[in-house]
């Protein structure tokens, strides 16, 4: 059982995301995170899926994804040298005074940004791998996290190696 990051290049048509996510649910595959957006070519999108399972399970996920007509290419990025990032926005209780300055210090250490300051809250924007986001979340928890949102992982292979849309 391990986590895999799959890069899925799809045609940018309506309903594609429903086909992909529907495939996961009806075949009993579990999605841990899913991030989607247009890519360098406007008629295509790139979906990053994080899924857990043993090798056979992941192999079957890849094959089933490849069966979808609108799926152009599935790459198991985990197996290659890659960069993976996730963005989280964390709204945390921060009364003016000690707490607020501590939170700002923590944000500084994590190279996170404070992107909103309210009377009693701060919103912290943090980018990184899942572990980093978990770590800052753990540190902010004692102050009281009132809302948290994560984008899901996006990932690309490192260096020259690509999964290009023009082939």
């Amino acid at each position: 059982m391990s986590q895999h990051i799959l890069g899925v290049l799809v045609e940018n048509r309506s309903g594609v995301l429903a086909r992909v996510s529907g495939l996961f649910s009806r075949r009993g595959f579990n999605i841990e995170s899913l991030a989607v957006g247009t890519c360098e070519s406007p008629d295509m999108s790139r979906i990053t899926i994080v899924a857990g399972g043993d090798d056979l399970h992941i192999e079957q996920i890849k094959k089933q994804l490849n069966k979808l007509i609108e799926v152009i290419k599935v790459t198991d990025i985990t197996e290659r040298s890659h960069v993976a990032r996730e963005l989280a926005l964390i709204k945390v209780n921060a009364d003016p005074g000690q707490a607020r300055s501590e939170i700002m210090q923590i944000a500084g250490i994590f190279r996170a940004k404070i992107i909103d300051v309210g009377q009693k809250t701060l919103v912290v924007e943090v980018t990184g791998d899942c572990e980093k986001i978990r770590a800052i979340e753990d540190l902010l928890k004692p102050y009281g996290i009132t809302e948290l949102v994560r984008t899901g992982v996006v990932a690309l292979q490192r260096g020259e190696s690509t999964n290009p849309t023009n082939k």
Partner: protein
Amino acid sequence: MKTGAGILIDSLKELGVEIIFGYPGGAVLPIYDELYEADIKHILVRHEQAAVHAADGYARASGRVGVCLSTSGPGACNLVSGIATANMDSVPVVALTGQVPTEMLGNDAFQESDITGITMPVTKHNFLVKDVKELKRTVKEAFLIAGTGRKGPVLIDLPKDVLTEKINPEDLYSDVPDLKGYKPTYKGHPNQIKKALDLINESKKPVIYAGGGVIAAGASGELVRFAEMFEIPVTTTMMGLGAIPAKHPLNLGMLGMHGTEYANYAITECDLLIAIGARFDDRVTGKIEHFAPDANIIHIDIDPAEIGKNIAVNIPIVGDAGQILADMIERGKPGEQKGTEWTKQVHKWRENHPLKIIDDGKLHPQSVIRKLSEILNGEGIIVSEVGQNQMWAAQHYSFKNPRQWISSGGLGMMGFGFPAAIGAQYARPNEHVVLIAGDGSFQMNIQELGTVAQYRIPVKMVILNNMYLGMVRQWQELFYEKRYSYTDLPEVDFVGIARAYGIPGRKVESADDIEESLRKAIETDGPYLLDFRIEREENVFPMVPAGAGISEMIGKHETDDKGDD
């Protein structure tokens, strides 16, 4: 200028469509208006479900794409089980559905349903056409997807305003765009083929396990040549019946839950299993650990997702079964035939453990099927419903050719057979088409007697009537202490019902009348119904109980031991 509906009909004609099975309604009236004088035949069924099954039966019998048409909402929803049937059995069907006008989409308008959403899991692909310019291209794309690679159903949803909008045909997008994500593999990888040939040469006890993919690929000829060249016994799935003639010396018949004893023994004992166009379905494998436990496995399939799905494979070969077998025949060395001891053993099993038939003068379903097979000389098209009738037909009819046996495999769809027989008859008008049904399954689409009567479709209906939902009753007998919960059916005067539609028929209650009544039905022009009152508690044997290994059959031929000597 042409309407979208006109463009649709022109596109279908261009693709060679000759017949559509359908049912009209508000959203598809523009299409029906065009059909009024189009030279495409339209068969008015009595229920949309029958339209899709008929298109499916047409496709299975002809090898071409079958087409059905329904209106939006309820009509479209009535297609779903039939589309799922085609999907499970990889049958090329294009389903055309009407839809509310695009401006009303998503507003819960009258007779609106999100049919592309509903059918997403049971189609190979589906489309909602929102722009009339896309129409012609979409139809071409749909036929391409349905009829190539691993075949399957494709649905096109057609909003009413797209059908009524007028357009200059020159403004249509007509070329199928490059489908970047759809590139089926046809040619097997040469290294894999070489490895497979090596494994065949090393093996002592090989068996071929052939499925419906062999028939879909039109690879029966190659299968038989391949089996003969290496002298390898062949067992087929229910979907693969007809891929090798029943009476071929290397044919072991069907394997699995209701397979022959000798096929199941051969699978259990083999040291090499060559799976071709088959998907290791649970009704075939039984308990997976006991399925070919000592064998290396070569798996040939056009769908990579089938390989390794249920069972680990030593040599996967992705591609078209016909091309791969032809390659193997070309590259294999004659004179390296297998067999002798192994084929002798297999033949011995076959002699010692034939399928059981009871000769006690009573009316048994097996005798009906065997007599039918004899009268038609193993030819004709046999379409079955689902249940005991299906298994008796599969076990006892001696099929000679592919596309002769039409039955719902993957989904096990009761009600499939009767409308599928209608479609098959249109696909091959010169063949005898015989429906084998149970009294339960026949009543699932009995309204199609109206269609058969209206067009005088010469389908012969053979009902094996035990006044039970027979297969369910069998399971209740064997595994639920004969607690026949809601499986007995009251007596029905099927002949009387047929007569009400103007269809002749006969009730048969004695074994002495089997032959004569079958001959009479076959010789009669037009449709004919036979209501055979068979032994009520007859079972389908042998049977592998769910969860057991396939050699652990009950209802075996003589003894419980394998009788190897």
